[in-house]
């Protein structure tokens, strides 16, 4: 089983992706999708042998909900800034010390921070784990550090140990 499916989660995602793209579950395309899924798993195994494992699916689901709400809120915030509703505004860089080291966790954090308007991931120092973030509407630096660490980093470290 391990030989056939080195990355079951990835293979499953590829299979679903294939079916969605073809918009059918007819046996022909499904069979082809199965081949794509299997070959995708084998190819990833050659690139990196470590198994991709997602723990705590419930934590991941909750994080997705939190992020969706945050994206909505910051959309409204940035739209207000652009439309000139907030005159006194100050943007700037902040430094955040990260304990998260897992590359997949960092990638997920980058997606979260970039998808949220108002925060932009600018630089990451892998040696000591410093993250340089640009904030459009910077009021309290400490508050932002706490938000990123508690709201996003904590659950990500549980999901990708």
């Amino acid at each position: 089983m391990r030989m056939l499916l080195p990355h079951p989660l990835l293979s499953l995602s590829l299979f679903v992706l294939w079916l969605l793209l073809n918009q059918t579950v007819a046996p022909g395309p499904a069979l082809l999708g199965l081949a794509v899924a299997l070959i995708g798993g084998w190819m990833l195994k050659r690139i990196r042998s470590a198994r991709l494992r997602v723990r705590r699916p419930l934590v991941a689901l909750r994080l997705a909900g939190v992020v969706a709400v945050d994206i909505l809120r910051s959309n409204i915030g940035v739209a207000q800034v652009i439309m000139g509703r907030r005159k006194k505004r100050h943007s700037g860089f902040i430094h955040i010390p990260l304990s998260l080291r897992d590359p997949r966790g960092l990638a997920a954090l980058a997606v979260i921070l970039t998808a949220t308007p108002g925060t932009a991931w600018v630089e990451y120092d892998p040696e000591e784990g410093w993250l340089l973030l640009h904030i459009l509407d910077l009021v309290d630096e400490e508050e932002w550090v706490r938000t990123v660490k508690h709201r996003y980093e904590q659950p990500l470290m549980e999901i990708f140990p």
Partner: protein
Amino acid sequence: MNHAAELPLLVAVPVAVLLLVGAALALTGSIGLLKLRSFYERLHAPTIGTSCGMSCILLASMLFFSVLQSRLVVHEILIGFLLIVTTPVTLMLVGRAALHRDRLEGSHKVPPSARPEDHAAAAQSDG
């Protein structure tokens, strides 16, 4: 798209509203590109279009085609997922290129490093 006339009003209204909201958000992002002052501030503007703007338009598309074809059309989720996952690649590339250029030019507006200690030391030597 003549089939659009067959769409019941109960569906047509939300589809139209979602499309308008999505388009308005994308427009806001584009206006932001014009109005915001520094390069790093402008990095934030297009994200409005790729997060909520994109979601609204994709939801409208899902609703429209699901009702017209009387079956669940969900491959728009894929577009959304791929868009969200690939945006950071370009945004980080552009952001880091700007940071590199500013540092080479010796600008004091950008931190010299991701580490704050160096930042504090540099600020002291400047002052």
